[in-house]
């Protein structure tokens, strides 16, 4: 490392390729590659990790028996519980509430607010967080939120963009709810005080997203999720709705009929459990990025370990589209400290182009994410036109200086402070030099199947946000995740509030867990396999090898 000479944050061999990129910029500025045809998209997708052979297996048990899902997901879904049910006393509830929400991201927080709006007393709502209220993917969303709200952009356009991007696998009535509620969500956020990017005349600044046919992306610089989330969290706290942090739900409880009636929480710091009785449960636990499917790094937060999927599947929830994974086209590939971190799609909305080692633009910058990611993988590993980093990763350039070349000097500073800051910490100036990118694991496209109100096939259980399936089909578009969390968080919170008006607290048992364990035994599953995972394992191998447990 000490022998390598660094210039502006890059080692010499990468710097040589950057000079080629810098020289070709003027020529490329107005010569953007054309968008692909349906056939070209199909061909390009063959190198996508979802399409490339291997990586999946069929589920042996449960509601989705026979369906293929990524191997790490299958292993978690087919796991024994963390707890021995004989050690847990379910007869005494530490918390007796009407609506329990598991997961404090945008979806869960929105659900809590709407449950209160719809008449549930604040003391009868409880938000459960595995880590902090705010440890979520929502807070890291950068690029924007879709909402069709200009005369040229009717909601049916948003519907078509979404369902075409999702390869027509989306559940149509759920997509309809998504696009119909989008303007309503914008109005709600305005009233709560979210500061969106606006023009001098007060109109929204609206931008392109990959696979959209109209400018529909509402942003807050490149901190969109941060701004939306911190406003919802502030509202939640200002209303004094109860929440518990650092206590993940590690099992649901059900009654004789299979209805979800509560959960067991685990205090990560003391190791003690608590029992919650809830008339209605909203599961908003997010996705599975930290499973590093196919060995990819991820943009996801620390706790994205599919816990909600595991709990719901054990309780009998039906999944859909759980075979597909979104790899964001532009993850950081250099420097090594930030590999896999998200570079917002908004950079490409603003004109940044993916460029190979020879300074050539090889793909339309705003294909749907699965297509764009595939084109980048192909450029690096099939056409061998990538750049290799000192730590052995391959990537292509994202030509960020082109943004200022198009929009004028200072544009990046105003629109992309997070991106600029992240690279400046490693001595790279994205207004002067391009950045190296490679796809990174970003999103769980599918999940627990729902109706348009977030209701599942299990009584007493609603889902919202990334843990749900059906909105995005086999591939999500940019800006539909933050939108989806709020549309369905709000709907699930309201539906749960309506339900509890006539529901009683149910009996709490582990009947569904016992039944699931029988299925696991019948399928010969190794009893050492336990879930939910709660947190990924990143401790150094040398220190792990010496660990002993004396307590």
């Amino acid at each position, binding site marked *: 490392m000490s022998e390598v000479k660094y210039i502006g944050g890059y080692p010499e061999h990468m710097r040589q390729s950057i000079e080629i990129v810098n020289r070709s910029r003027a020529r490329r500025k107005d010569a953007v590659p054309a968008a692909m045809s349906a056939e070209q998209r199909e061909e390009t997708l063959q190198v996508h990790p979802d399409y490339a052979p291997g990586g999946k297996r069929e589920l042996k048990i449960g509601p989705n028996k026979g369906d293929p899902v990524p191997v790490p997901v299958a292993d978690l879904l087919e796991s024994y519980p963390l707890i021995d049910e004989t050690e847990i006393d379910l007869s005494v509830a530490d918390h007796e509430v009407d609506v329990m929400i598991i997961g404090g991201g945008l979806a869960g927080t929105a659900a809590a607010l709407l449950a209160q709006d719809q008449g549930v007393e604040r003391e009868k709502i409880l938000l459960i967080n595995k880590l902090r209220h705010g440890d979520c993917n929502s807070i890291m969303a950068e690029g924007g939120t879709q909402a069709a709200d200009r005369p040229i952009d009717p909601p049916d356009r948003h519907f078509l963009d979404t369902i075409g991007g999702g390869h*027509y696998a989306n559940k149509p009535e759920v997509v309809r709810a998504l696009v119909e509620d989008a303007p309503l969500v914008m109005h709600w956020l305005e009233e709560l005080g979210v500061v969106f990017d606006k023009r001098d005349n007060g109109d929204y600044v609206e931008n392109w997203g990959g696979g959209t046919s109209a*400018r529909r992306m509402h942003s807050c610089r490149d901190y969109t999720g941060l701004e939306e989330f911190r406003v919802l969290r502030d509202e939640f706290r200002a209303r004094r709705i109860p929440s518990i942090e650092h206590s993940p739900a590690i099992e649901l409880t059900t009654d004789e009929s299979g209805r979800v009636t509560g959960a067991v929480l685990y205090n990560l710091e003391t190791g003690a459990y608590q029992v919650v009785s809830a008339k209605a449960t909203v599961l908003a636990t997010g996705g599975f990025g930290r499973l590093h499917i196919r060995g990819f790094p991820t943009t996801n937060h620390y706790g994205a370990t599919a816990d909600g999927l595991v709990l719901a599947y054990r309780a009998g929830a039906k999944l859909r589209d759980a075979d597909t994974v979104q790899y964001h086209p532009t993850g950081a590939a250099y420097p090594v400290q930030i590999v896999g971190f998200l570079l917002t799609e908004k950079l490409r909305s603003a004109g940044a182009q993916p460029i190979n080692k020879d300074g050539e633009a090889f793909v339309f910058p705003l294909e749907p994410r699965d297509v764009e990611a595939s084109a980048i993988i192909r450029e690096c590993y099939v056409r061998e036109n990538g750049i290799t980093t000192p730590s052995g990763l391959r990537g292509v350039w994202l030509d960020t200086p082109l943004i200022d070349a198009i929009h004028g000097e200072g544009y990046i500073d105003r629109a992309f402070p997070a991106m600029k800051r992240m690279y400046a910490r490693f001595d790279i100036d994205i207004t002067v030099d391009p950045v190296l990118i490679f796809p990174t694991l970003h999103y769980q496209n599918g999940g627990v199947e729902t109706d348009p109100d977030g209701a599942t096939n299990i009584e007493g259980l609603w889902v919202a946000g990334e843990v749900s399936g059906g909105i995005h089909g086999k591939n999500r578009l940019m800006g539909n995740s933050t939108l989806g969390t709020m549309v369905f968080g709000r709907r699930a919170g309201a539906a749960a509030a309506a339900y509890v008006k006539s529901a009683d607290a149910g009996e709490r048992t582990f009947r569904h867990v016992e039944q699931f364990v029988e299925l696991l035994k019948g399928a010969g599953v190794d009893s050492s396999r336990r879930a939910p995972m709660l947190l990924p394992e990143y401790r150094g191998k040398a220190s792990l090898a010496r660990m002993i447990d004396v307590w």
Partner: protein
Amino acid sequence: MSESKTMMEKISESTRSLTTGVDTRDVEHWVTIYIMGRGYSVPADLTIMTAMEFAGYKLIRSCGCRQGFCGACATIFRREGQYKLESALACQTRVEDGMCLVQIPFSPAEAAYYDIAAESYDYSVFSKHYPEVARCVSCNTCTKACPQDLEVMDYIQSAIKGDFESLAEQSFDCIQCGLCALRCPAEIVQYNVGHLGRRMFGRYGSPEPEHLKTRLAEMERGEFSSVLDALVGASTEKLKELYAARVRESDE
């Protein structure tokens, strides 16, 4: 097809240390850091966060998004031979030899309970909920503590002037890590003051666009119901046809 399998293996191999934890055999350069005073030898190219994990810490507090957005990993450190305490985000800062550090697991700072619809859009909202802002002595310690390099003192001054727009502009990139408040000699909770001001600006200083109001009225009248009904009921073939026929909005 065996070629793409090889490709997936190549990709996963190139990122193994990032996805499964660092293997000592791959490390060429080492530094020594002091986690709460105890020394550990760690690979030189790790961040504070990944170095702590390498050393054997299973992080529960002080770790969240791992990418500089959530503010969970506020860290105080001192460089060897220096007297100055510096602040950083553990996930965004590379380790340095001799660094002595502690993470801040939680900030017990006060946050106001309020109803945004009932507040006045002037300075009184700050004097009501955070009267201590008036005690700012302009020492700039908050600004120096900010891992986002925001002009924290300036936005507190904007709050004192009742200038919501400047406050929103200056404080926008705040991730609410709490370091400013923990260092402030006047006991001001800068990040919560900033948030109150931004929400006030969002609601009262930056009105809802007319085109959104128009669309809401159209939706209210059910103007798109029949076209959406038709799409929900359409066959995949029909949807493919409609998707292919979309005309992209002009770039002009």
